[in-house]
């Protein structure tokens, strides 16, 4: 591949911009300088940002000051968006493979040629093998929406997102237990129990800011259970280095104590929960003593903690975390967290957990359409009702509860290799690095080599793209407009900040164009992103104009907790419409609505028990992550990088250029290892070579690696063959019920 010197190109564009500064609706503030308000894409959080642009060159990024939760804050990765934009290793021309698959021989092509090739091939494959023989994978966010729309139009049900490799469990558990998603009130809590939700390394700014202030306050308690002395552990009031995989035992013992001593919110449980008897039976034997040998936490300690939490309730958050991919028992672990919260009666209480009060919900609460709402032009696209390769949503299948728009990534490679339930011929991927982020890389590599045709849309020639037949370069988020999205009680929108560098296109345009070329676009009611936005806004031009100008529109609404009379009274002063809904005790119980089959919080879930016997209530089946290996390898996030996305960006690479494996110093010395020694981590799935980092900050039986290094792609010059890809030693078997990927895995160490 030719190295493209687009920095030169951008300087050229810059000088053009000086002569003819027609860029967007945003006003220039100072000569040739302007601010564009947009949305970050350096991770999946989508923080509102402000980009300073000078001579059509992005020069600085900070948070959008109009978003009061974050203000001008942005993390290292967010700040480095500029450096990604101008990274010399970025893709800026469509590429067509000329050598063997994976040989890294390409020729540049025009968009017409590249898209024609994709359209022709996909049409051919559909005709010969049926649309289902093409699978579609994507990262989170808008890429997924536009890819899904295209896949539906094409006729394939095999649509996948990153879900099963990250948040699937907590989403499913909250849905099953409470009937929908919930927010954690970190700002007003008095006691937070954190199971390694490392918001100080996997940064979500709005939550990290609140948790940092919570941790620094003197009248609050942050309890962290984690095998590693992470940053969140370092900020805790108490850190318990729990044995990996055993959170579920700790939680079941906690619940055992509360039920044994009748220390839970009985009134709340009687009114709003079902399944207490089944819960009691499931934790009958999970005593503090029982958990001691499993978790490594003493019975006295857990008794004290159970008491502390109960006394602090309801201003308590037992945090379900973000990346819920620990053990095969992950569903039970997260369920136990959901149940523990319910027992503390913190639902719709200040400092507890609550439903999000977005504009839609507020309109319903108030009973009037006070705030503008959005339409969804993507609603017309339905996932075809034909069998998927992973059986997601099909009765009798292990993935029954998994959404057919997200699927189970780990099931892709086995399905391709076994040709069951039917042969797969092609793979279309947008912005997801399957070969670094999904378990069992060796199997995936074998599977990919079986395919006839692979298309990859990316901003880098990543490991997956390197095996593609056609690589389509996407514009970075600073170069493209996107649709309107909801944030808090308001909306925000990604606005283009600079002109496109080189020859790239937005994901929206790529899929829309393909759909029209392939004549499968009868359901599309839009051709441009402007039309899409206008349909979303239902013609509300004021809303659109403000979103273009400010990047965000939020409505000042008093905070409201449906079981907190003080906040309800305050809310009624602004919105007297709710007055006749208030109960005699000052609560808004008529608005509490659990969308579960029983209309209650389900401590026992009948529909799960029927399909997955013994999983309807808590159990400890298969929590062991060691599986007869000496160590458990755990992984997590760093504030410098996002999964497998940012490692090549020069400024971030300089701050963190590799990822050695953490090992307990005392243990390592016992085994004869020195700091920096090269070793193999090995198990039944694979073997990786890594450098050891000796530290006191981890349990002697646990190893830790920051995920995302170990790339095969020569085009990623800063990281080619540096560090290890931990997904190589992860197995493709998924967790029970929730089908989550399992990232805590048993390994042995061998000297390299």
């Amino acid at each position, binding site marked *: 591949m030719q190295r493209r010197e687009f920095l030169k190109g951008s300087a050229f564009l810059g000088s053009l911009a000086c002569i003819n500064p027609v860029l967007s609706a945003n006003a220039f503030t100072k000569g040739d300088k302007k601010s564009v308000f947009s949305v970050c894409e350096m991770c999946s959080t989508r923080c509102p940002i402000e980009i300073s642009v000078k001579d059509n060159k992005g020069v600085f990024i900070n948070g959008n000051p109009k978003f009061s939760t974050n203000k001008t804050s942005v993390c290292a990765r967010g700040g480095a968006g500029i450096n990604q934009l101008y990274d010399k290793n970025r893709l800026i021309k469509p590429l067509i493979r000329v050598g063997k698959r994976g040989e890294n021989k390409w020729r540049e092509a025009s968009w017409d040629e590249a898209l024609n090739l994709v359209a022709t091939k996909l049409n051919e494959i559909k005709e010969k093998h049926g649309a289902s023989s093409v699978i579609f994978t994507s990262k989170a966010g808008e890429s997924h929406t536009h890819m899904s729309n295209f896949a539906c139009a094409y006729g394939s049900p095999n649509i996948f997102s990153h879900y099963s490799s990250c948040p699937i469990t907590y989403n499913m558990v909250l849905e099953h237990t409470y009937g929908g998603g919930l927010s954690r009130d970190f700002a007003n809590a008095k006691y937070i129990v954190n199971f390694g939700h490392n918001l100080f390394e996997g940064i979500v700014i709005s939550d990290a800011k609140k948790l*940092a202030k919570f941790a620094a306050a003197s009248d609050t308690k942050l309890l962290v259970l984690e095998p590693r002395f992470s940053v969140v552990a*370092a900020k805790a009031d108490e850190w318990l280095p729990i044995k990996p995989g055993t959170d579920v035992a700790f939680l079941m013992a906690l619940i055992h104590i509360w039920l044994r001593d009748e220390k839970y919110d009985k009134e709340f449980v009687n009114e709003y929960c079902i399944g207490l008897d089944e819960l009691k039976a499931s934790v009958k034997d999970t005593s503090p003593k029982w958990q001691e040998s499993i978790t490594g936490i003493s019975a006295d300690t857990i008794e004290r903690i159970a008491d502390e939490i109960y006394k602090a309730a309801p201003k308590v958050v037992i945090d379900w975390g973000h990346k819920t991919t620990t053990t095969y028992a992950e569903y039970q672990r997260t369920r136990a967290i959901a149940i523990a919260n319910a027992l503390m009666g913190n639902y719709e209480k200040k400092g507890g957990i609550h439903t999000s009060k977005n504009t839609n919900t507020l309109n319903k609460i108030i009973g009037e359409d006070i705030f503008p709402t959005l339409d969804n032009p993507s609603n017309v696209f339905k996932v075809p009702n034909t069998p998927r390769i992973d059986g997601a949503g099909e009765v009798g299948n292990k993935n029954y509860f998994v959404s057919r728009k997200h699927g189970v990534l780990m099931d892709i490679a086995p399905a391709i290799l076994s040709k069951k339930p039917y042969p797969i011929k092609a793979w279309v991927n947008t912005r997801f690095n399957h070969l670094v982020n999904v378990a069992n890389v060796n199997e995936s590599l074998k599977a990919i080599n079986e395919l006839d045709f692979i298309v990859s849309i990316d901003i880098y020639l990543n490991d997956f793209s390197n095996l593609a037949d056609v690589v389509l370069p996407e514009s970075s988020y600073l170069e493209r407009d996107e649709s309107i999205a909801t944030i808090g009680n308001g909306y925000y929108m990604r606005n283009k900040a600079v002109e496109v560098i080189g020859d790239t296109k937005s994901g929206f345009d790529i899929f829309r164009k393909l759909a029209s070329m392939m004549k499968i676009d009868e359901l599309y009611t839009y051709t441009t992103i402007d039309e899409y936005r206008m349909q979303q806004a239902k013609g509300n031009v004021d809303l659109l104009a403000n979103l273009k100008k400010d990047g965000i529109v939020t409505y000042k609404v008093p905070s409201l907790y449906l079981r907190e009379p003080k906040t309800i009274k305050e809310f009624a002063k602004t919105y007297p419409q709710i007055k006749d809904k208030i109960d005699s005790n000052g609560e808004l119980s008529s608005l509490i609505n659990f969308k579960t089959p029983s209309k209650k919080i389900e401590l026992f879930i009948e529909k799960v028990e029927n399909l997955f016997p013994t999983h309807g209530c808590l159990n400890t089946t298969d929590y062991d992550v060691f599986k007869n290996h000496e160590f458990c390898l755990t992984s997590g996030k760093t504030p410098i990088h996002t999964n497998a996305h940012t490692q090549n960006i020069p400024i971030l690479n300089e701050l963190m250029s590799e990822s050695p494996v953490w090992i307990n110093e005392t243990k390592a010395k016992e085994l004869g290892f020195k700091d920096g020694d090269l070793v193999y981590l090995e198990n039944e799935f694979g073997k990786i070579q890594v450098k050891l980092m000796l530290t006191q900050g981890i349990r002697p039986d646990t190893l830790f690696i920051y995920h995302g290094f170990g790339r095969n792609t020569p085009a990623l010059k800063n990281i080619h063959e540096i560090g290890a890809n931990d997904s190589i030693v992860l197995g493709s078997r998924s967790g029970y019920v929730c089908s989550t990927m399992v990232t805590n895995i048993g390994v042995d160490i061998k000297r390299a």
Partner: protein
Amino acid sequence: MKKFVMIHDENLCIGCEACSVACKNENQIPSGVFRVQVHAKMKGVFPNLQTDFTRASCVMCEDSPCVSVCPTGASFKLANGITLIDENLCVSCKYCILACPYNARFLNPITKAIDKCTFCYPNRVSDGLTPACVSVCPTDALIFGDINDNNSEVNKVLASKSVEYPKAHLGTKPKLGFIKNTKGGRYE
């Protein structure tokens, strides 16, 4: 007269290096060198551990050794307490690097002049903005402002919290203070 002070709350700091990235982009600092970094240091023996996050940057001494030793006058102080370097006068003799007890100065490989933190005075603070690092800090661990303004955030912090100064015993009277980490080190 304004007098600028910065406070680094080590309890709020999470070592995420957002400050470092913002500084490099705002001030166009080339690769290999930094005006600011946060150093994380773990100490203790498992499981009794503590991790401290300290800011490494110019501390804006009132009594600045770097200014005293500079033979050309390139290193100079503004009345508002900020020490700057005039690139045109700097002859890269590195006396100031040797004299600085905070290891805060470096040779900029592009400009070939000595470089260091400026509290973003020339490019942001003189325009009424906050320094880039303060602006982006995800946890609001950096507080910046005018000590002569009674209502400023720095004065509120100085009044309510115990602020220390790095290597105070040297008598250089830094204008970058810190609130010491109190977390860690006491477990079952």
